[in-house]
């Protein structure tokens, strides 16, 4: 390919500037010695101190990360098995199932959120009457009133994460050489062993890929969490949305700087280590 020109470097530089300028502004004003988000009045770390004392924001960050992690793990398990299952189905059965699977991807977030909210509330009502009936019949003490909370939030996140996992694994399955499995079974593996030892390593990059995307989508989500998290549980996005509706505090700037800083530092560190590793490998090959 042609060597990159000055124009291309300039264009890319501008795009990155566009992507990062607002974030830098956020970060700079997190150190501002006044509530203003636009007028610089001196350096302070006050907002960070206040941030760590703010239980609401901290527990929201905790919830966000926990939900992202758990939902990614659960989605990966279900999604991997689902992808393998779909791959081995006959086409007539697979096509409609895949179409349904793509619905959470294609659908607008707000429709998914609203539909899940309606579903959960309806399910709660059903449960309520069922539990009440069982309680009176058997004398148990099942809770009759369920409400939106961490569990529904996680279920919702799993719901929109699984399609991403499946989307990442299916191409890898298609690229896989079918005869490998045959060969493994010829050499004496049971079908389960063949599956673990042949299929899984082939699709592992797809799984990792999918987990990455799923985690990113989960952390980035707002709308679906807004409708399914209920009153007592909040993700970071919901807390910020609530805060923007009231007096805005630079604590928001502080948390975004922290989040961004942690990920950036780690990315740089790991990248540098990998680059050094590559250089070492290259040197060894020579």
């Amino acid at each position, binding site marked *: 390919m042609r060597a990159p020109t000055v124009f291309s470097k300039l264009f890319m530089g501008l795009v990155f500037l566009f992507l990062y300028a607002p974030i830098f502004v956020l970060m700079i004003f997190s150190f501002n010695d006044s509530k203003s988000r636009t007028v610089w009045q001196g350096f302070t770390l006050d907002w960070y101190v206040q941030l760590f004392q703010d239980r609401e924001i901290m527990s929201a960050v905790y919830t966000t990360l926990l939900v992202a992690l758990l939902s990614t793990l659960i989605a990966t398990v279900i999604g991997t098995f689902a992808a393998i299952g779909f791959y081995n189905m006959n086409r007539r059965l697979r096509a409609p199932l895949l179409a*349904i699977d793509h619905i959470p991807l294609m659908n607008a*977030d707000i429709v998914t959120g609203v539909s899940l909210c309606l579903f959960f509330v309806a399910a709660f009502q059903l449960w309520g009457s069922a539990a009440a009936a069982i309680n009176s019949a058997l004398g148990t003490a099942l809770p009759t009133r369920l409400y939106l909370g961490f569990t529904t939030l996680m279920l919702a996140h799993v719901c929109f994460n699984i399609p991403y996992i499946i989307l990442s694994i299916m191409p890898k399955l298609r690229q896989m050489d079918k005869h490998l499995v045959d060969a493994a079974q010829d050499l004496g593996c049971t079908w389960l062993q063949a599956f673990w030892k042949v299929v899984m390593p082939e699709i592992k990059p797809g799984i990792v890929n999918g987990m990455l995307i799923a985690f990113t989508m989960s952390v980035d989500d707002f709308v679906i969490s807004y409708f399914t998290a209920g009153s007592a549980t909040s993700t970071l996005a919901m807390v910020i949305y609530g805060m923007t509706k009231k007096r805005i505090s630079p604590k928001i700037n502080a948390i975004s700087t922290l989040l961004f800083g942690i990920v950036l530092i780690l990315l740089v560190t790991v990248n540098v280590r990998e680059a050094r590793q590559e250089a070492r490998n290259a040197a060894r090959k020579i």
Partner: protein
Amino acid sequence: MPLMPLSGRRAAMKNKLSLFSLPYVIWMALFVVAPIVLVVLYAFSAAGGGFTLENFSRMGDYLVVFTRSFKLALVATGVCLLIGYPMAYLLSREGPRFQRVAMMLIILPMWINFLLRTYAWMSILENTGLLNRLFAAVGIIDLGNLCNAGLNTLCAWLNELFGLSLSTGRNTQMEFFRMINTQGAVVLGMVYNYLPFMILPIYSVIVKLDHSLLEAARDLGASSSRIFRKVIFPLSLPGVLSGVTMVFVPSVSTFAISKLLGGGTEMLLGDLIELQFLGSAYNPRLGSAIALVMMGIVLICMLVMNRFGEGEEQAVIL
């Protein structure tokens, strides 16, 4: 594909493996199909129970909101495409180290939440915000006032000369440019938030293009622009489609961006639906109906678009 029947062993394994998807099929029935069925049920039911079409009958009232949402989403998608495609293409031509770093830099903002990214623009675009302060300090606002004054006199002169009635009332006392609480701010917010979703699919497709195809084209004497038009662009269409989908659908249905940057004076579809569920005008049936209509229109758009590209083999984001 050989026509001989699958060996018994392989068929048995296939059957067993296809059962792996059973948990997910049950999951889908519960958490994907049932909620949508509920939305449909709500859309067609009246407050006292029973089937009705009245929720849809008033859809015409909201035509303004529909057109506004689709217009803004189209503009945002167009801008994302204009910026994102060249970006993806230029990225694909760089060295692997650069590409790796660039990819990370593009994904990184997604790990700060979507709402934080939108909030960042508020303090920049406000009347007393950063940009306006910068403009005032550098004198651009005074320049704007001068231009307006000049245009005013010009229009007054033209009016006298030709008997027109051009506007001569432009504000010459501006202290700031009104940037926030406008539709432009909403489009800016959409572009900013969804640009990575346009760049990544296109990039991932272009990068996987078979280089031998490009070499063959060059060997056959095609110029660079010809190669792009005839080889690269058509082959990158699945990525373009994926990117367009991932920008258009959220843009049409957003409500946080219009609330934070749009001022709430001109509702979009997302605002309208949220209003009916958790907002100030509780009416889940009407909300479901609007959501259904929106879903339908978006589905039609997607189907129309998919005629230009492959159906199932959608580009993966990474």
